[in-house]
């Protein structure tokens, strides 16, 4: 032997010795073993009985050598008769069969697996010649032209800054895995607030148009089994976070934020610096006004959605940004605030479908990826104002809030503006001068949680979210709605400091058409 391998002569001798030993063993034991009447051939029975798996609720079939039986697993005992009948019909002797109740076997996909519909937090791959790189999908959304897609890092395209139509694949570049094509990635600028000799942007973001054959779960992020546990396995019991709102700016230092990424999974930590100008190692790029979070991160986590958890049990979250970098020791990550991502000079406004959680589900069956260039969206507030009540002036309470206005906002897309999208804006004010009257001079209420139900020919959808600094909560766009009349009703309104005084509703802007003491507003398509 030399260098741990068998020399040719020794190899031949070893093989010969093994063959001889085997022949001797066969001579002594083989014939008698073959001659013995053995147990039923369970493997053959298993093959014969395999069609039993066609019965819904049958979990498994196994030739279990420990009990010398063909064991069929079922989700519930009620299936036993059907199983036995089917096996008998297949010619399987029932005395060889045992039926056991077995928990259903659930696939446990990981962030690195192929997952459809696509959602934030999953691994994707792209080619930057000559290598294939992996990053993390940020979040799904639609751009201002109504094109559906998803946000990724600019540095997760073929060239950071500028559009090269980079193709994105999930989870890898195997055939059939293409999920999108880069369509937006602003170039880095110089001058202005950018340090001399550097190139700057306010976010490391790009937008990829989704493939028409790929489905996406809008407003959803993959949820793994827990924070800071290193798991990449998606929690089968609670597989998703739901985006209900977007942060309106940078995070306050001390805020606890989270991210889900394909390398280190779900990690959580506190914001340590807010609105920091950051030089990207090995480049002339400076990212302006970024936030830093003390939480674990690793290579491949680029693009991870960054979010605040509003409710752990329901998975309701506020989207804060898109991760792009980290300290070299993996102790902290850097992200671009979602507000920066949506600046006019960056990706522009995106509908991330914040507030479309709860009972609202979005499984787009078609995406307008192949439609001609959509016309510029027109946002036309439409209102059928039906004043039905006049608030009685009197002694009020500055802590009383109310729904000031419910407005349908409209945009059109497609050739000739043939497709109508609608969203609902709910404006919340409080009786800040305590005069018991709802009026336009009252202060807007930010941070109020609004629930609004939209009823139309397509069914009923309940949406919720939080008001911004103007006191306004906007739902995501409801895409390509059919003609008909739609009614939006504010069904719940809560706030940490203020209470909803329904006596102040409906205001002169809205109605209560169904008389249930909740303000509503109707809108008809076509207009």
């Amino acid at each position, binding site marked *: 032997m030399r260098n741990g391998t068998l020399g040719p002569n020794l190899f031949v001798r070893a093989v010969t010795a093994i063959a001889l030993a085997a022949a001797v063993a066969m001579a002594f034991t083989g014939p008698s073993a073959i001659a013995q009447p053995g147990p039923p051939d369970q493997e053959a029975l298993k093959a014969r009985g395999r069609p039993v798996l066609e019965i819904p609720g049958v979990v498994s079939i196994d030739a279990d050598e420990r009990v010398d039986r063909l064991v069929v697993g079922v989700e519930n005992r009620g299936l036993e008769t059907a199983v036995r009948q089917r096996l008998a019909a297949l010619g399987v002797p029932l005395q060889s069969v045992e039926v056991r109740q077995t928990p259903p076997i659930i696939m446990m996909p990981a962030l690195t697996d192929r997952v459809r519909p696509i959602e934030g937090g999953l691994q994707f791959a792209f080619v930057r010649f000559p*290598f*294939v*790189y*992996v*990053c993390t999908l940020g979040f799904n959304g639609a751009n201002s032209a109504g094109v559906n897609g998803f946000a990724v*890092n600019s*540095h*997760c395209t073929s060239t950071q800054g500028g559009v090269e139509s980079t193709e994105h694949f999930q989870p890898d570049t195997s055939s059939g895995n293409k999920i999108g094509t880069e369509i937006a990635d*602003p170039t880095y*600028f*110089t*001058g*202005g*607030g*950018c*340090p*001399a*000799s*550097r190139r700057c942007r*306010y976010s*490391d973001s790009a937008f990829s148009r989704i493939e028409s054959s790929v489905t996406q779960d809008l407003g959803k992020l993959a949820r793994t089994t827990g924070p800071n546990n290193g798991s990449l396995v998606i929690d089968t019991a609670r597989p998703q976070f739901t985006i209900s709102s977007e942060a*309106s*700016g*940078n995070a*306050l*230092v*001390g805020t606890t934020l989270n991210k889900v990424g394909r*390398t280190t999974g779900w990690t959580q930590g506190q914001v340590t*610096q*807010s*609105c*920091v*100008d*950051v*030089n*990207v*190692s*090995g480049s002339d790029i400076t990212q302006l*006004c970024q936030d*830093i979070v003390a939480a674990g991160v*690793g*290579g*491949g*986590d*680029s693009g991870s959605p960054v979010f605040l958890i509003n409710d752990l049990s329901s998975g309701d979250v506020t989207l804060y940004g898109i*991760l*792009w*970098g*980290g*300290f070299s*020791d993996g102790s902290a990550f*850097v992200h671009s605030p979602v507000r920066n991502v949506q*600046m*006019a*000079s960056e990706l522009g406004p995106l509908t991330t479908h914040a507030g479309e959680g709860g009972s609202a589900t979005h499984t787009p069956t078609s995406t307008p990826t192949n439609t001609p260039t959509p016309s510029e969206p027109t946002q036309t507030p439409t209102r059928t104002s039906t004043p039905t009540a006049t608030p009685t002036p009197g002694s009020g309470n500055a802590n009383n809030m109310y729904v000031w206005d419910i407005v349908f906002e409209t945009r059109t897309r497609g050739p000739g503006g043939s497709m109508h999208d609608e969203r609902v804006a709910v404006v919340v004010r409080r009786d800040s001068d305590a005069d018991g009257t709802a009026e336009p001079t009252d202060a807007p*209420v*930010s*941070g109020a949680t609004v629930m609004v139900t939209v009823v139309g020919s397509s069914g009923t959808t309940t949406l919720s979210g939080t008001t911004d*600094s103007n006191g306004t909560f906007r739902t995501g766009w409801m895409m390509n709605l059919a003609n008909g009349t739609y009614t939006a009703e504010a069904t719940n309104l809560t706030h*940490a400091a203020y209470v909803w005084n329904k006596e102040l509703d409906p205001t002169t802007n809205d109605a209560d058409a169904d008389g249930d003491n909740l303000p509503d507003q109707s809108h008809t398509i076509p207009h």
Partner: protein
Amino acid sequence: MSFLPRAHMVATPALAVVVLSIVVFLSFQILDSDAEARPIMATPETHDDRLLRVEQQAPGFGGMFIDRDGTLAIYLLDQSQLPAALAAIDSVFGPQTVPPAGVKVLQGQYTISQLKQWTDLLRDLLTMPGVTTLDLNEATNRVTVGISDSSLIPSVERTLQSQAIPREAVSIDVTGEIRPLGGH
């Protein structure tokens, strides 16, 4: 003019065309480079700008952050300005900014406008190799400069001195390099 050699007379218009072409070409180049140098959009209001707006309504405001006990910690030079600061925070950042745990006042040493001025003066530090971050750090009431390793501290300190920025107003943190996190 009439005594100029013929050859020169012929060459002059051609030369003028060439010179004019060069001038026009260069002027386009200058226009192009101007376009590249111009920021794509007007600088948007940043988090730091919002902090400045709070200070305008509450003189002596020096920053704020969520402390470990869940309270909103507010830096003030004059602690009697707390009611004004709370009102300003409410109007600029929204009423939800004050958490249920309440607020606490910390003695500030610098105002946001001072920190902003120094941060702007230090902007060129970002062109120094090894400098990783620059931050008006409202959570420490300081300016924070991040560097990849401690050997850069003297260089940063020389810059502070040249800009007449108090050394104690600036914290210099060794962050290591900050890298994009695409993976193979």
